[in-house]
């Protein structure tokens, strides 16, 4: 282009561009800036600075307009995000309103998003488990999707690397199906959770209840104090942003760390409409950004682009990045871009009561949430009529029952002097879903958003395998609860649409073969070697672990590889 302003182009040129500032984008920023690369992080939403921009963090319940409940008018305007458990007055300013960025639901899908610096890392449930080879080998063994191009040995050291910096609490449980990590002390199980753990251990050889592993500083190390973070104070108000930096978020950890290097440029209000591919150079040269305030479009340039926009938005950007070389979206020679989207099946839970251990209750709050049961179905061999399996949360608590009957002085008395309930126990399933070509996202052919980007069309649904697995979860948990002597066992099967799990994955999957996958074993595009995807879009399969820790490890590993490649002149 002859008219290009060379100076402006120079001013807009960085070593690296990272699209997105959430959990994986934050890691990319930290890794590149630490290694001395001038890094531009583009965030479509507003800035949220640690502590300063957590307006609700120190509020008491009565300091919210409606003691936490969003007004009915807000719920009616936002039926989708209102279905999310975290959409309350204390955190709704961190969640995307329905009309802010619409999408097309070819099939019902609740797309829950956080458009601000830090993204959903401010809001996540902070559960962090490693994958094992029982997970990475899943597609090959059980004949679905494509084979993962990596195995546990390829990523184990990167798990350690990110765990040490992020701060992960857990026990070394010695389970082959859920590898141990570099842990801070675990948050302990309570009396009833321990009891259930004992029952399961004595009745089942391959089922385990462990302390949930979570990204909280139970006992910070120097590296955490150096980030300006402090010990978790057991507030369990994490979704508001933590003034102690007690849990890991981009805002509390990776982004300020990156900023300290002097190599970070963070640009909020920047919607990336596409990644720019230069047909002559045969590589990507930068990205095209719409400023959401001015609506002006500006190009930014770099040697390498990391796409960490959040799984489905990463698909959107890549699909919308069309060139002569890639008429169907960047890197999409195979035609699989946007396809094989999967998620986690959270649609069943179960609760019950336990009459024993009344000499104990809990005091304070457990940020880990309680216990975790790693997947026990179809781990070592296929044993059911469905593929794969589910992990399960397990938690127990006693609450104050406050009798609301009657009026007057006696009512007041019974309200103020509650009675401890028996232990209430509960569990929820986290099922693996099988990526399929028919579960996909694509670009709307006729609708565009406020920034001129086509709306994302989402066609993702449950299938028969999910239904069978759900049924098995209810049966197995009922059996285990019965073994434990729990009473009033109450299954609760929800008909919620996919999406509410907020674990959407895939669309730009990793694989050995460029004909059936978008990314290679380094999260690098097969067809364009200076583009990397290390957020949920890269996932070949979902297994049952909460995914964020794996995104962090992929990102750090991928940056390491990208830097070596640049140094060797390959990129």
């Amino acid at each position, binding site marked *: 282009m002859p008219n290009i302003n060379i100076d402006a182009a120079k001013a807009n040129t960085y070593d690296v561009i990272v699209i997105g500032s959430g959990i994986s984008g934050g890691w990319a920023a930290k890794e590149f800036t630490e290694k001395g690369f001038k890094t531009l992080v583009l965030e479509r939403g507003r800035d949220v600075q640690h502590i300063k921009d957590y307006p609700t963090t120190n509020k008491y319940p*009565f*300091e919210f307009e*409606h003691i936490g409940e969003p007004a*009915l008018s807000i719920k009616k305007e936002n039926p989708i995000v209102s279905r999310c458990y975290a959409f309350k007055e204390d955190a709704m300013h961190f969640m995307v309103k329905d009309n802010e960025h619409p999408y097309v639901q070819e099939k019902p899908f609740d797309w829950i998003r956080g458009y601000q610096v830090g993204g959903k890392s401010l809001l996540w449930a902070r559960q962090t488990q490693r994958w094992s080879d029982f997970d990475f080998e899943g597609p090959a063994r059980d004949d679905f999707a494509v084979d993962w191009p990596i195995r546990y040995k390829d990523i184990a050291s990167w798990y350690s690397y990110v765990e040490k910096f992020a701060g992960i609490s857990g026990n070394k449980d010695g389970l082959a199906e859920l590898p141990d990590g570099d842990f801070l002390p675990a948050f302990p199980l309570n009396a009833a959770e321990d009891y259930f753990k004992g029952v399961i251990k004595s009745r089942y050889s391959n089922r385990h209840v462990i302390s949930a592993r979570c990204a909280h500083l139970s006992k910070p190390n120097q590296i955490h104090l150096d980030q300006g973070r402090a010990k978790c104070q*057991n507030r369990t108000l994490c979704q508001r942003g933590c003034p102690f930096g007690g849990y890991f978020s981009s805002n509390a950890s990776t982004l300020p760390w990156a900023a300290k290097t002097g190599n970070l440029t963070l640009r909020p209000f920047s919607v990336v409409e596409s990644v720019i591919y230069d047909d002559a150079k045969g590589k990507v040269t930068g990205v095209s950004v719409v400023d959401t305030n001015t609506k002006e479009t500006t190009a930014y340039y770099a040697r390498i682009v990391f796409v960490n926009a959040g799984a489905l938005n990463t698909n959107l950007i890549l699909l919308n990045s069309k060139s002569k070389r890639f008429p169907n979206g960047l890197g999409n020679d195979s035609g699989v871009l946007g396809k094989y989207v999967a998620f986690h099946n959270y649609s069943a839970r179960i609760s019950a009561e336990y009459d024993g251990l009344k000499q104990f209750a809990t005091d304070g709050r*457990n940020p880990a949430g309680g216990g975790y049961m790693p997947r026990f179905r179809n781990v070592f061999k296929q044993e059911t009529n469905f593929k794969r399996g589910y992990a399960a949360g397990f938690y127990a608590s006693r609450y104050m029952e406050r009798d609301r*009957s009657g*009026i007057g002085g006696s009512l*007041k008395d019974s309200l103020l002097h509650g009675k401890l309930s028996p232990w209430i126990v509960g569990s929820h399933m986290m099922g693996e879903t099988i990526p399929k070509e028919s579960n996909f996202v694509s670009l709307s052919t006729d609708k565009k958003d406020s920034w001129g980007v086509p709306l994302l069309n989402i066609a993702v649904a449950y299938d028969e395998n999910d239904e069978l697995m759900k049924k098995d979860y209810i049966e197995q948990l009922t059996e285990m609860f019965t073994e434990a002597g729990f009473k009033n066992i109450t299954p609760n099967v929800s008909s919620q649409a996919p999406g509410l799990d907020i674990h959407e994955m895939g669309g730009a999957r990793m694989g050995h073969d460029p004909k059936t996958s978008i990314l290679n074993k380094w999260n690098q595009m097969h067809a364009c070697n200076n583009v990397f995807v290390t957020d949920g879009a890269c996932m070949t399969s979902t297994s049952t672990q909460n995914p964020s820790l794996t995104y962090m490890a992929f990102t750090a590993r991928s940056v390491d590889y990208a830097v070596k490649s640049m140094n060797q002149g390959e990129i």
Partner: protein
Amino acid sequence: MERRLVIKQVLIMAGGLALLPSCLREQGKSTIKLQHLDVSMEQENLLADIAETIIPRTKTPGAKELKLHLFVLKMLDDCYEEADQRLFMSGLSAFNEKTADQFSKSFRKLSVHQREGILTKLEKDPAPELSAFYKIMKDKTIDGYLNSKYVMTSLIIYELVPGRYNGYFPVKTA
């Protein structure tokens, strides 16, 4: 600080919620700003007396002092469907009329004993036209009480920063 003080004086504290006063200061209208409900001063006072009958002043403050009736109105105004709001308002009128019929004077003029008698009866066997009104009134009065600044900071202390977790906290079994 001074600016905060001024704002605090202008706002009406209900439970712990800070409510905007009604703008127009219209004669005979509710003291707080409501978007959907049309509540007269007289109705507001009646609600205050009902709330006080549900949660009376004992050695500690009751509903009136904590302005829990305004909490009820605020929640009803913002968080309930229009149909529920209508049922509440019509139930309130019916309640007023029924009481007047039975005692030849309004609820507000009755003794505490008489007021308790009316609500106790309503509690056990609510007339259909009163049930929705009374359920919302009682539920929200209790919610407002338990979530009030007074209760959360003086009686059932809400801990913003526990700083601990004990999963084997010994308690009496009885």
